[in-house]
């Protein structure tokens, strides 16, 4: 072992290469995101010409500014919210397989959308701006209400395991209610379908603004909680012995989780696996404390969803594959690989 310098240039004490790695990863993910955003602006049903003609063609400019740009930014933001929510859920439940929808928000959002669709009836008005706001609003309220219901059923936040079970129960029951609603009014099935599959095609500037604000709030909140999250990873007793109030921590985490998931689901529907895969991908590349993990998972989530959206758009152009379907397939394959990778590593030991 090399002797230690009292004034080590490396202030954090962890190795410099580890520090370099995480900084490099931040830069790489941001650069790739920018690249994807540019691609997202260039790609669409009218092809590259729109970008070329944007300077002197008002229609092409409008396509880019009002359709492609918000959609591209929105896809990134929704992914970032899901990635952040995934990192939070995994920290809260101390389980790397936890996903942002665990507290029942997905089923609550679905039920909210189903009820609104049934209430208004499916009509050509569905494309109107006001109606869409109604759908997003319903999804958001549904997501928040289901998390609230989970909290009530688990009788508070004292027991993580009870919280998890309550979340599953809420998911099953609300899922059944959603099915019941579609059974009563089969005409809503098709529009339900597009929501359940997850899509970025409804994103407008309004959604971008909402998601940006939500992301800022959640990032700030979790940044203040990151130290406590690190402590929680050593177990509840240890965290508590370090003077951390577990109930306050859990409530703050659940609030951030509900906000991030609720907003993302409201704007893009149920997009699978991004929230689960983003933190995994980050952890497989660097080992970091939660302040970095949350930030990196968020950036990674944005990149994942945006690139998945791009591929989904390119693969089936000029038609479109719902991105949620695509992330589910890709995410499934990725997790399978991860699982087998771990197995072989353990067997190798």
């Amino acid at each position, binding site marked *: 072992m090399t002797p230690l310098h009292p004034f080590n240039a490396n202030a954090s004490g*962890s190795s410099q290469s580890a520090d370099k790695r995480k900084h490099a990863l931040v830069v790489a993910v941001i650069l790739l995101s920018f690249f994807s955003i540019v691609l997202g602006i260039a790609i669409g049903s009218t092809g590259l010409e729109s970008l070329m003609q944007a300077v002197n063609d008002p229609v092409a400019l409008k396509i880019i500014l009002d359709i492609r740009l918000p959609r591209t930014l929105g896809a990134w933001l929704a992914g970032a919210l899901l990635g952040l929510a995934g990192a939070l859920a995994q920290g809260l439940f101390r389980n790397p397989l936890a996903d942002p929808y665990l507290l029942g928000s997905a089923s609550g959002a679905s039920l909210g959308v189903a009820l609104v669709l049934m209430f208004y009836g499916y009509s050509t008005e569905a494309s109107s701006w006001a109606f869409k706001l109604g759908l997003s609003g319903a999804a958001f309220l549904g997501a928040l209400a289901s998390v609230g219901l989970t909290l009530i059923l688990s009788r508070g936040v004292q027991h993580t395991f009870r919280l998890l079970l309550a979340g599953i129960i809420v998911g099953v029951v609300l899922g059944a209610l959603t099915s019941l609603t579609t059974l009563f009014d089969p005409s809503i099935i098709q529009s339900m379908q597009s929501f359940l599959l997850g899509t970025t095609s409804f994103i407008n500037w309004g959604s971008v603004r909402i998601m940006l604000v939500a992301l800022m709030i959640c990032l700030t909140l979790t940044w203040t909680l990151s*130290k406590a999250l690190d402590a929680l990873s*050593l*177990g509840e007793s240890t965290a508590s012995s*370090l*003077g*951390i109030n577990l109930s306050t921590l859990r409530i703050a985490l659940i609030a951030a989780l509900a906000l991030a998931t609720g907003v993302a689901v409201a704007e893009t529907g149920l997009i699978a696996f991004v929230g689960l895969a983003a933190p995994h991908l980050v952890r497989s590349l660097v*080992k*970091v404390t939660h302040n970095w993990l949350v930030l990196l998972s968020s950036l990674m989530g944005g990149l994942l969803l945006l690139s998945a959206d791009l591929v989904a758009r390119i693969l089936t152009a000029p038609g479109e594959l719902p991105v949620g379907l695509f992330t589910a397939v890709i995410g499934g394959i990725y997790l399978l690989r991860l699982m087998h990778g771990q197995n072989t590593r353990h067997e190798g030991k």
Partner: protein
Amino acid sequence: MTHTAAILENVNVSLGNRPVLHGINIEFKSAKWTNIIGPNGAGKSTLLGALAGLIPMTGKVMYPALLQSQPNSKEKARHLAWLGQNQLGADDLSVYDIVMLGRIPHQGWLSSPSAEDQLAVEQSLKRTHAWEWRTRSLKELSGGERQRALLARALAVNADILLMDEPLTSLDPPHQVDWLEVVKSLLAEQKTVITVLHELTISLLADEIVLLKCGQIEHQGSSSNPVTHRAIEQVFENKVQILKLNDRWISVPKITAEN
């Protein structure tokens, strides 16, 4: 300087609906090593948890060195460090980052580690001989190495009272001796050490022994007192025998040859 580190008054604990501790009244001497022993299920870990204020209970726990009877959570966390048994999780954090968590009670909510924090972490890691693998993550360590990293985490709190539940788990004999050295140096710094240990022979190296049986204090006394030895033998159903060897007390299993 007070002579008592902690006082428990009429402490009752139930886990689920099962009462585990019944009306415990006990004082722990400061700047001494007290070891809690007893048969399986006697409530040893629960007693340690109650002492640390980590589990719901009725009754009173007081730390005379803390002037207020209701210290805030941060003051308490600085006064009392806790090392639990079989801690899982935190697999992805580096050993250094984990030990730095022990400095949370000393840090502002958003502040980054001070020079003092870094010094404390370095000293703790060196004390448990874990400094060399400070950049490795917890999942890359063996059970014994992991235990030493977690001990360093508890030491980094620099608390006056250190509570340890089965700290020798997965430590090999040389590292058990290293652990004893750490405890000795803590006592030399006037710190109080309270442990739950299964190994009777190592337990007998403590200053004080608390014998717990069925959620009640059976005996409390000096580890060199023959009365304590008889009480230990009795609590363990006379299946152990405490003998003297080279001025130390050791425990050996007692096997009665029957037919």
